């Protein structure tokens, strides 16, 4: 076959429906394109298709194959009419020299059968199953550009985050210890920030006091080697250690001690600052001798010197208390990864005996289960405060762990508003106390862990006495007292802080009270902010549940009519005063009397004492059985 290579022979089959329209637009384009490439298009058009079938009884003539075979290309429009059976339509299969391309009209819809078709350049009628062979087509171009762009966006975001959380978490190795705790400090300045978290982390570890509490609750020397009390019980003389240094390098002297004590009244803002009001003067006699004169004798003052208000600050180290605490303690804050952990590093220039662990990381968990898992998987070595006693079984029978159970200073009380509302009436308060079955309550809401004490005094205080029999559970008596009071119809608002023990015990208290004929409305206030303002400051409540964790807090909770319990008893205040000013024996007697008076007046109901529940790896030693002080004392910890 000879023909002019310049000439391109095209067969055009416009077909039916939209076909002619499309082809009419396509042909000029094709023509231009071919001419631009130096070809001379020769176009022949045929009217094959459904229209022709209807007109002439066949979609294409018998010699269709010959007509098409000699052409270079066939341009198809659309073929097919609904009123013509599909298999009657023409089908053209045409193959180029590479054995590719297929042309068939009407286009098949549905799953095609993969099949190599045979013979070159062939026109055939469709098989009656309507499934002619099809040949593979190439597709290579930019398949998924949209997805690519998205991926690139993510990549950028991720790359930008390479130093995410730039400060480190826990240390590893034999000299490092990781302890899991619950409440993270908001900052490091306990002179201006309320709450127990800061002193838990820093006291005795970063800051030291003149005197500290030991495990049995006795006052022991720390920065003071010894002290004497004058005959009138008003002047304390402390002899201080010689070689103590602050972490900023400054030596610790009696001037720093006097500065620290005086600074409480001048600069501190927290409620506990009042505990130093009794100080008249604090004077440095020599670098190692400090004389503190009190306005009146006070047993409590020396005790308070073991708490945060007795912490010793450097005269040159109080500018950035919130972020850079400076103390004389064996540890210094090395890193604070906010929202996660605080790492304390052992000081090499510590004046006293070096603690065992070179690095201690306090990791904070809001979720008790997460803390349990962290111990189970080795992220932490110690659960410092177990917040889910019902999950203790996961550790109790496992030889890898030990469980420590002791007492704390955290009296969980059902606080009653003595100043207004139905609970102003003593009989209603007494009825509340009779109505509560404390054993059942503690079993239900704190897995039976804890101690029933019936008063504001934990067993580690010298004047502890078991007062649980003062108001034994007696539902009938409660009902009777409530009726006698004439307040039976009134609703009591039980306003709970959002804390695990409070929410757990709140529902039990409500149901026990309701069984005794009370009407109780329960609501929850976000802790700390909302609860502190509504209940603690404004006393807008009838009942609440809170654990008072500060040591020796009878005075703070009940000693003033402006405290949120609104308990106003001159007799009680007189007893506290007598205890503070008397001898040690007088103190114990008076404190016992005060605790009994509180109980008798039903100033509150003492639900139970929070247990000190710790779980630790077997080899950790020196963990405190009882929480006695405000500090989580790390200095005695070790590894066997």
């Amino acid at each position, binding site marked *: 076959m000879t023909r002019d290579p310049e000439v391109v022979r095209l067969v055009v089959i416009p077909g039916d429906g939209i076909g002619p329209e499309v082809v009419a637009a396509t042909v000029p384009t094709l023509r231009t394109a071919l001419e631009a490439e130096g070809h001379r298009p020769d176009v022949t058009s045929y009217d094959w298709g459904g229209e022709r079938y209807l007109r002439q009884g066949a979609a294409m003539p018998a010699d269709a194959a010959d007509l098409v075979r000699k052409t270079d290309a066939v341009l198809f429009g659309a073929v097919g009419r609904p009123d013509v059976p599909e298999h009657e339509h023409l089908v053209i299969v045409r193959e180029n020299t590479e054995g590719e391309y*297929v042309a068939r009209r009407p*286009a098949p*819809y549905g*799953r095609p059968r993969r099949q190599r078709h045979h013979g070159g350049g062939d026109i055939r009628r469709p098989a009656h199953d309507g499934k002619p062979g*099809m*040949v593979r*087509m190439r*597709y290579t171009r930019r*398949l*998924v*550009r*949209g*997805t690519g*762009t*998205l*991926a690139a966006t*993510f990549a950028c975001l*991720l790359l*930008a*985050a*390479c*130093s*995410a*959380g*730039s*400060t*480190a*978490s*826990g240390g590893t190795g034999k000299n490092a210890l990781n302890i899991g705790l619950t409440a*993270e400090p*908001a*900052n490091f*300045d306990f002179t*201006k*920030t*309320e709450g127990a978290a800061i002193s838990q982390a820093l006291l005795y570890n970063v800051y030291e006091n003149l005197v500290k509490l030991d495990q049995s609750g006795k006052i022991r020397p720390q920065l003071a080697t010894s002290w004497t009390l004058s005959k009138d019980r008003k002047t304390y003389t402390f002899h201080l250690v010689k070689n103590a240094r602050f972490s900023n390098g400054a030596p610790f002297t009696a001037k720093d001690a006097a500065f620290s004590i005086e600074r409480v009244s001048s600069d501190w*803002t*927290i*409620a506990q600052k009042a505990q130093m009001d009794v100080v008249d003067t604090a004077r440095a006699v020599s670098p190692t001798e400090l004389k503190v004169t009190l306005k009146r004798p006070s047993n409590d003052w020396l005790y308070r010197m073991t708490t945060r208000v007795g912490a010793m600050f450097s005269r040159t180290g109080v500018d*950035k208390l*919130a*972020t850079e605490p400076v103390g004389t303690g064996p540890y210094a804050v090395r890193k604070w990864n*906010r*929202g*996660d952990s605080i790492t304390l590093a052992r000081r090499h220039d510590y004046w006293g005996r070096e603690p065992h662990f070179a690095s201690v990381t306090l*990791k904070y968990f*809001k*979720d008790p*289960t*997460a803390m349990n*898992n*962290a111990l*189970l*998987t080795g*992220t932490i070595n110690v659960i410092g405060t177990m917040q889910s006693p019902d999950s203790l079984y996961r550790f109790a029978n496992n030889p890898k762990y030990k469980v420590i159970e002791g007492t704390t200073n955290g009296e969980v009380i059902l606080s009653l508003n003595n100043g207004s509302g139905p609970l102003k009436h003593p009989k209603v308060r007494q009825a509340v106390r009779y109505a509560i079955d404390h054993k059942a309550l503690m079993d239900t809401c704190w897995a039976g862990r804890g101690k029933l004490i019936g008063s504001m005094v934990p067993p580690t205080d010298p004047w502890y006495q078991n007062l649980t029999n003062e108001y034994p559970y007696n539902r009938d008596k409660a009902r009777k007292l409530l009726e006698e009071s004439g307040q039976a119809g009134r609703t009591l608002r039980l306003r709970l802080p959002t804390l695990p023990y409070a929410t757990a015990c709140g529902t039990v208290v409500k149901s026990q009270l309701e069984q005794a004929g009370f009407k109780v409305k329960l609501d929850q206030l*976000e802790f*700390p*902010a909302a609860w502190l*303002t509504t209940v603690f*400051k404004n006393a807008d409540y009838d009942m609440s549940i809170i654990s008072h964790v500060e040591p020796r807090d009878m005075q703070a909770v009940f000693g003033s009519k402006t405290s949120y319990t609104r308990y106003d008893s001159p007799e009680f205040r007189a007893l506290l005063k007598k205890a503070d000013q008397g001898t040690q024996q007088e103190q114990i007697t008076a404190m016992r009397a005060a605790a009994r008076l509180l109980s008798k007046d039903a100033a509150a109901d003492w639900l139970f004492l929070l247990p000190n529940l710790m779980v630790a790896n077997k080899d950790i030693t020196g963990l405190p059985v009882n929480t006695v002080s405000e500090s989580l004392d790390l200095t005695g910890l070790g590894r066997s």
Partner: protein
Amino acid sequence: MIVRLAQRIAILLASLAVSSVLVFAFMAVLPGDPARVALGTSASDTAVAQLREQFGLDRPLVEQYLSWIHGLVTFDPGNSYISHTPIGPQISDRLQVTLWLVGTGMVIACIVAIPMGMVMAVRHRKPSGLILSALSQIGVAVPAFLAGILLITVFAVGLGWLPANGWTPPVEDPVLFLKQLVLPALSLGVVQGAVLTRYVRSAVLDVLREDYLRTARAKGLRPTQALLRHGLRNAAVPVVTVLALQLATLLVGAVVIERVFVIPGLGSLLLDSVSNRDLILVQDVVMIIATAVLLVNFLVDIVYLLIDPRLRVGAS
């Protein structure tokens, strides 16, 4: 295209301005004095007044607003009321953590959802498609934290393959970082992926019914080829929309996962600062999140333009 882009940028800037005013106004009308809140219940009035002056709370509102915006724009938002530490590093630290978590989660979600959704759509009347569909419904119904707890129980506590929780910056220990990232990212990714799968499925189903896909098939492409070559990009537009919405939600919404896995992310920072009443920090975090959401929407608009040429032509 450029007109489109300029429009989008203008909208972004306007929305940022409006949201900043809203955030500021909202914080300003909140009851309670931030200084008193910061100092606690027992602070004296002089102490509060001092702190108000220190925070600049005694100045006129407009001045406060402007100085706040100035601080944000210059990346120096000042110090927190409660922790007394600079806010900028706190937020950027937390944001980076969250970006890792959410980014990885979303990548996993895409890896799960796009093929799954396509298979489900293509086989939507077949048993295999129905089984996948049921699985994805379960995925949608399971909250991410539950998935997280299950993963922890199995892979951390049970098998001990991976740590149960914690966070380590990648520069510090890349291996530990990856180990700790796996479970939280999976819990986010699988659940978000299940949600996304539903959208991919319906988008692909819509596309399958389109004429152009039949045409592609008519040209001789196999169904998978036709779908990949012509269908995917068209199905992408609604999917990208959903993806962006999920991404924006997750910036804060990952907080539950952050809590389960003890990860110090942006969501926990917001929660903590709300409960501490650290209002300036709350205000800044909320603004950052608003900015992030607006930025994501802006990026999505750009991605639309890349995916769908029709939108590009439409503008010029």
